[in-house]
Every structure is written in C-alpha cells, then in structure tokens.
C-alpha cells in the first residue's frame, strides 16, 4: 500500500524532471536554503545544528585523551558516529537500516579525514602515550533527504568551534580549555541523485525515494577532491560524474562562507 503511494509520488518527480522541473521548483543544481546554529551544548567541546531545507542534523564534538595506535604514535585521531533519531523519519518504525547509517557515518568521516582538514599530529599530547581522540557524533533530527551533505555541514561547523580541554595529570579538567582545534581545510560533501536519467544536486526526500543512483563528491577546498561515494543500484556515465564535480566546486565557494 505504502509502496503504491511512493510509486505514484516518484512518478510525479520523474514526469516533472522530464520537463526539466523539480518538485519544489528548484534548478537542477540548486541547494535548498541552508542555515547553521552554533553552540548547541555546553557539555560538548564543540557543537552545531545544520539545516538544509527541512533536513536537520545536530553534531557535537568531544575530545577524549586516549592511547595512540602503535603505528602512529605521534598522532591523534577522529571517530565519527551517526544516528538517525526515531522522529527524524517515522517511516523507520523499528529503526533505520544499519548499513545505511554506517555508510553515512563513514562517508562523513572520510570527507574530514582524507581532506587532511585536521593535522593529527597536533592532537598528540605525549608521543606514544597519550593523544586526543575527537569523537564527532551526529544526530539526524529531521530527514527530508540528503543527510550526507547536512551531516558534513553540521560536523564541520561543530569542529570549527571546538575547543581543546585542559588536562591535569592526564585527566580532563571540566569546562576549562587551552585553545581551539585548528582546522586546515573546510571539507564538504555534495550529493547528487540520478533520477530517470537526470542528475540533481541536493535531493529532497521525494527525490531521494525516486532516485536510481547517488553520487557524493567531497571537496577539501576550491580545487581539490578528497572523497567519492557512488551508491544505489543505478549507474553513472563518466561525463555525469565530471559534471557533478564541476558543480561541487562551484557550490563549495558559497557554502564555505556559511560554516
């Protein structure tokens, strides 16, 4: 029954796209309105909420001292978690599919990690013994499609205002800080949906349900790519990928001003 309704809605998305139109009237390469709210939790070392249209994600960062990996004794690291809260998408009565949430977290993670936005050496406290682990945990509050870009935005905004806690005898001193986390790059994700042969930027929920294939492109700055992720059962032509990359660079300039 529900399947039938979704099929009808998808048919509508598709027939409009055939005429070059999107269900919400946007241009094919247009983002929905974006807003960012900082400082969502005093207990977090950094935090922010990001909205793309009605899609909303809250991200918080906690810096925790831990032991470094044996093969990287002088480097801290990040750990990126994602959760889709039950009210974000009432469709998932028994929770969202686990693999989809893991993919989401890992793509956001790679955007940050592979861009080298954080110099992990600056997270070293004492070589071989103690380093900072930055736990970046994101909660989807409302899912109106394109969680990837919204979560990347929220996570980046949270990192941009993250403070480094004070340590005494290797233990955290609560609510005291020694400085700010240094961000070398401003990595962002740009997600495209391919629907009945057309490629659109920032798919909303209806488009998300109707899409055949998904492509996410992460840029580290205005001329460097740092991660790709193709998903879903459809395919892309090489030329389509190239167009997506062009748009990602173009949109990146605007978005980086916001975070």
């Amino acid at each position, binding site marked *: 029954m529900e399947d039938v309704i979704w099929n009808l809605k998808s048919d509508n998305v598709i027939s409009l796209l055939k005429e070059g139109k999107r269900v919400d009237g946007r241009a094919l390469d247009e983002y929905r309105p974006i807003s960012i709210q900082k400082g*969502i*939790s*005093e*207990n*977090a*070392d950094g*935090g922010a909420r990001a909205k793309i249209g*009605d899609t909303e994600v*809250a991200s*918080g*960062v*906690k810096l*925790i001292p831990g032991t470094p990996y044996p093969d990287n004794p002088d480097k801290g690291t990040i750990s990126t*978690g994602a*959760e889709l*809260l*039950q*009210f*974000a*998408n*009432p469709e998932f*009565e*028994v929770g969202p599919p686990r693999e989809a949430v893991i993919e989401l977290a890992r793509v956001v993670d790679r955007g940050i990690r592979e861009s080298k936005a954080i110099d992990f050496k600056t997270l070293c406290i004492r070589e071989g013994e103690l380093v900072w682990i930055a*736990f970046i*945990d994101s*909660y989807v*509050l*409302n*899912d*109106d499609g394109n969680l990837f870009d919204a979560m990347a935005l929220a996570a980046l905004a949270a990192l941009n205002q993250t403070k480094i806690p004070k340590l005494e005898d290797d233990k*955290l001193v*609560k*609510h005291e800080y020694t400085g700010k986390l240094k961000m070398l790059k401003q990595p962002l994700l740009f997600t495209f949906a391919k629907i009945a042969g057309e490629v659109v930027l920032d798919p909303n929920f209806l488009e998300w349900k109707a899409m055949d294939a998904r492509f996410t492109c992460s840029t580290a700055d205005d001329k460097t790519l740092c991660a790709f992720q193709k998903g879903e059962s459809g395919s892309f032509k090489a030329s389509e990928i190239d167009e997506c990359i062009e748009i990602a660079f173009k949109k990146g300039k605007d978005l980086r001003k916001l975070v």
Partner: protein
Amino acid sequence: MPKKDEKIEYVKGGKRLDGRKVDELRPIKMEVGVLPRADGSAYIEWGQNKIIAGVMGPREALPKHTQNPYKARVSYTYRMATFSVPDRKNPRPARREIEISKVSGEALERAIFLERFPNTTIDVFVEILDSNAGTRVAALVAASLALADAGLPMRDLVSAVGVGKAGGEIILDLNKDEEDAPDAVDIPLAILPRTEEIVLLQMDGLLTKAEWAKSLKLGIEGCKQIHEMQRQALRKKFAEAEAKR
C-alpha cells in the same frame, strides 16, 4: 563544582548558589512543533538542559503480538547524546536510560485516552542534547507538549519538576551543584495538574517524613508553574498555526 566533603551553605540569606530562591525554577523556554516529519514535537531549554521530543502515532503496533485490543500502548525512549554530559556518554543505551524510559512512558499513559486507539502504539522519543540535572522531568514536560502537538486526546497535560534537599534545605528544581551536595535528595515528580494525581515519583537519598511532606508541597507548586508555561507554549503554537491559515 564544590568538593563533596566541603562545608557549603546551599541557601544563604534566602538565596541559593545560583541566586535563585528556594522555590524558584531555572529559566525555561518551550517551543512546540519543531520537527516537520514527526506527528508532534517540542523543544525545551530548562537551565542548561536542552531537549527535543518527537511523537509518532498512534500507528499499528508491530510485531502483532504486542498489540493490545483494549488500548494503545505508549513506547517512550529517553536518550542522551554522547556530548550532552561532562564525560562522553557511551552511545549504547544505559540501564539508567532504560529505567527512565519505562517510568516516564507509564506516567504519560495516564494522561492519554489510550482506549480510543486499540492495537496501536504511540511512540515518544526524547533526545537530550545538553544536560545539567533534572533532564527526566524536563523531557517529560517536552514529551507532553509533543503529544498535545500531535493532537492526541488527553485527560490533562503532564507537568513535572524536580524537588529535593541540599545542605538541609528543601528546594525546588535542583541544579547539578545542588545534586552533588553530600546530603542531596532528588525527587523527580510528575502530576496531572488538574487533579494533582501523581503519575511519576522517584526518590534517592535520606529523608524524614516531615521533609517529604514539605518537598511534595513545593513540588506540586512547581508543577503548576510548569503547567502554565506549557499552556502558553501551546497557545503560541496554535495562534501561529491559525495565523498561517
């Protein structure tokens, strides 16, 4: 944070450490209808606490064997974000969160006309984004608003507050410093304000009968202040909705 063994006067010249009077609530802000995809929702800031609540339902209870042919069931989930507490919270639900979810859901059941929705579930989910004492009562207040926002027929709103003891004084709405007092007693309390029925009541710490009597009185007064704020928040939401028509 005061050391636990230090001698502290928690109320001095009628004022508490944060300047409040013994019967004074922390600053509270409530907003109704904040989540487009949920059937009902609310956001609350109560002191440092920041909490978002969403309601889905009534919808068919699944799996089938959980259906009650006489009434809806309420499934309440209280969760803390990893970054909502001073130490990072493990993302897995803690036993504390499971217990709070159970008693909070039971408290809400009394307020809803459940018998009108047999075989269904009403799912209430609250996420704590920031915390500083009293999250379970603040969450319950937000959840109650979200239920009303979802248009569920209710006997009354659920209004809730923390009350208890610190430094020998009975005070309303303890903050974290007060909860850390050596003799601290914390009493989360929720009532249906119209009938003053008690729907949630827990207590931790050593208390005499006289202290309990005083606490209960203070708590019920607190709940009634909360109730007034809840009504205002709902009126604001409905006025806005009306204006949009």
